[in-house]
């Protein structure tokens, strides 16, 4: 059912955990639907230097979470915003059709974490200014 890549990321998920002093946090999904993903990012000089996640969800949800944290690390904010859910699915060598919504979840959580970071930046700038 799942590709080897999915199984690898599911079995040995990268970057599980929290970043206590994160620059951005995003939560997507809903435990009622069986899927919730929380994503933390650390940004330095406009570049994501660290990303961590915690996910309540199925194998695909965990694997996409793991994969997206790997994909964003080292990327600039602009580059990270380009990551689509299809890109995440492709990086995992595909997902079963019924599981495609899991890749949406990851991409959306990332976007929310970035939005959070950008909002904080704005807040910091305006309080500086």
């Amino acid at each position: 059912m799942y590709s080897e890549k999915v199984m690898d990321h599911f079995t040995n998920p990268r970057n599980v955990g929290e970043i206590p002093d994160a620059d951005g946090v995003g939560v997507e999904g809903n435990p009622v639907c069986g899927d919730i993903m929380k994503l933390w990012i650390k940004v330095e000089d406009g570049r994501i230097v660290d990303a961590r996640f915690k996910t309540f969800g199925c194998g695909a949800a965990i694997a996409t979470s793991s994969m997206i944290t790997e994909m964003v690390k080292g990327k600039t904010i602009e580059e990270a915003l380009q990551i689509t859910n299809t890109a995440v699915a492709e990086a995992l060598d595909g997902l079963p059709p019924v599981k495609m919504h899991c890749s949406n979840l990851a991409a959306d959580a990332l976007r929310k974490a970035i939005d959070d970071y950008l909002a904080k930046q704005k807040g910091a700038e305006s309080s500086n200014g």
Partner: protein
Amino acid sequence: MNRIYLDHAATTPMRPEVLEAMLPYLREQYGNPSSIYTEGREARKALDRARDRIAKVLGASSPREIIFTSGGSEADNLAIKGAAFALKNKGNHIITSAIEHHAVYDTCRYLEKHGFKVTLVPVDSYGIVDPAAVEAALTPETILVSIMHANNEIGTIQPIAEISKILRERGILFHTDAVQTVGHIPVDVDELGVDMLSLSAHKFYGPKGVGALYVRKGIRLHPLIHGGGQEQNRRAGTENVAGIVGMAEALVLAAGEMGEEAPRQRELRDRLIQGILARIPHTRLNGHPEKRLPGNVSVCFEYIEGEALLLNLDMQGIAASSGSACTSGSLEPSHVLLALGLPHEIAHGSLRLTLGRGTTAAEIDAVLEVLPGIVEKLRQMSPLYDANAGCKAH
């Protein structure tokens, strides 16, 4: 790695004796039972014998009350659609429970499109149907009640005999889906007092793709599959002779061993349940502690999701099942778990382990060894779980 198969409610390995009984009909005994020459008559005899053996185990009064089908789902569909359409001039109301298998549930839903009204009787937090609730749901239009004998997910055994007493008095047709009980606990159509009863061979170490519907004498049914005159014009199609012979063999063997096997499984089941509850916090047992199938263990682990759990167990060599929505790709978890009153997020974390003939105490202990670590690993990954507090984070 030796696999540990704990999904006997999904399907069972076929017994070697059953295959042995089938082989002649997969080889030289290939006649069509409808043919009048020697080969056909031999096949007919095999069918007759199988029908007779199954009728006896179920306590049917005549082998003519057994209709062979392609499995439990077809038996359920034939019973419910067949009776509903045959009785539609008498009334249009059907009663069923909130925790039926989809073969009953979806069939009733389909009948709603054909002008029938369906009442879903709720269950209590153990998953038990209250006979009084069935009685209360009756209307002058009620023509059929279908309540399963035992539930496939949570293993709860229903008070079928009590319900049938209420329905008998009023002459209302009563069907039970006994797919999970036949071959595992005693099933006697007269003791249960049912008019129709579904069973499926692959649930009791028989072949997949063959089942039967018991239909009490005198009950009219519209066929589901029209065509040749097989099965007394009630189910057309060349009979799966080998499969039917295998089903009968499997049933007779299961009935013979039940007296020893059921208590054996019950003991292992309780050891597994107690072991899980003792070792893993934030865990609930689904279903009734005693009124449950000998082989059924169903639990919910808070903060984690079932599919992830199954995949981890699989990698550790353990085959199990879940009512998790994610095993089916839908967002709604099992309607059975929701009917118990479980919140969605908890229903998502369900695990079903179902024991069988081959299950050993060593296997149970191996599961108890492995399971806590897997649950903990997934909880550590869960944003809902606060590891240090050991309780819900928000």
